[in-house]
């Protein structure tokens, strides 16, 4: 029995074959998967909006109420993501580097926003930050109102975004070789210099990834914000809520117009975060 000899391509058409088998199959599957789950559903948004026409789209997408909602949504989401960037890094650092009593409980607690239904989180945060709540009661005498203000929305978005940063940074911090810090120490760097110039550049790609995930989660968040925001149009109404309101009034065109703007805004922010991440990764390498 002779083994089948693999046929070779004609010498006139040189083909570079990948070393890995199954490139076409896996690529085809990935594209089909993305097509059905992401691209087709999102493209219907644009199709639906196109029915409005330019003037209809501009009218629905740039109404004062919608503009206020974009500003609030993007502003609160960016703020929450940045707060999580700072404190998520701190929590990840403490959880990987130090030993202290209650460490495993703290580690488990980080995943709470993943596990807790967002509506429950919203009710809990509203109870906590309302004027007669545990924290709201302490802040009210100083004139700081949290519940039913943009500050409350930021608090809720910070709550739901924290695990993204911690869980992105933690594994990188765990696998960071201690030797590079020892080298920095032998070269005369103090701890802060080592952190600033050796550890932080290595962590930046993961940190940016975590912050952008936290932002992406925050910008689409509905469940936890709906309770704490109070939903006053033009003041504390986030874009997802405005979309929901339009859908309830059967204003599908208006809802999709706002959705398209939100989609484009998020895409711009996430793409810039991705570029930042790539640049940081190149610099760290």
């Amino acid at each position: 029995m002779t083994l089948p000899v693999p046929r070779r391509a004609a010498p006139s058409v040189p083909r570079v074959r990948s070393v890995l088998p199954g490139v076409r199959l896996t690529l085809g599957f990935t594209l089909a998967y993305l097509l059905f789950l992401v691209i087709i559903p999102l493209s219907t948004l644009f199709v639906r909006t196109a029915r409005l026409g330019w003037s209809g789209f501009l009218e629905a997408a740039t109404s004062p109420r919608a503009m206020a909602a974009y500003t609030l949504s993007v502003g609160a989401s960016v703020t929450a993501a940045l707060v999580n960037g700072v404190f998520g890094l701190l929590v990840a650092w403490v959880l990987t580097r130090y030993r202290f009593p209650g460490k495993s409980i703290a580690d488990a607690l980080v995943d709470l926003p993943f596990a807790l239904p967002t509506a429950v989180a919203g009710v809990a945060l509203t109870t906590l930050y309302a004027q007669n709540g545990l924290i709201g009661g302490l802040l009210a005498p100083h004139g700081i109102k949290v519940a039913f203000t943009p500050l409350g929305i930021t608090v809720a978005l910070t709550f739901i975004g924290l695990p993204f940063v911690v869980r992105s940074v933690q594994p990188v911090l765990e696998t960071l070789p201690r030797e590079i810090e020892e080298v920095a120490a032998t070269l005369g760097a103090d701890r802060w210099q080592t952190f600033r110039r050796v550890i932080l550049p290595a962590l930046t790609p993961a940190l940016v990834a975590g912050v952008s995930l936290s932002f992406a989660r925050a910008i689409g968040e509905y469940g936890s914000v709906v309770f704490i925001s109070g939903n006053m149009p033009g003041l504390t109404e986030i874009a997802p809520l405005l979309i929901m309101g339009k859908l309830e009034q059967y204003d599908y065109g208006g809802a999709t117009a706002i959705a398209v703007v939100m989609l484009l805004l998020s895409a711009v922010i996430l793409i810039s975060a991705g570029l930042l991440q790539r640049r940081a990764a190149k610099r760290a390498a």
Partner: protein
Amino acid sequence: MSTTIAPAAPRHGIAPGPRVKRHASSATGESAVARWLLIGAALAYLFLFLGLPLFVVFQEALKKGVVRI
């Protein structure tokens, strides 16, 4: 002289003294004050943002007792 031989013994590394160990860890670790400040800040943040909301969930759920009559 016996005094010159005695300090040479730990240099072979059979039994590293506590002084050697502490020195090695301090190059890639923070001072105790900085460490506890960082741990304190992280735990305070976790308590404020995750612990308290969790506590409130249970407090609200059990406000009327474990078994509702």
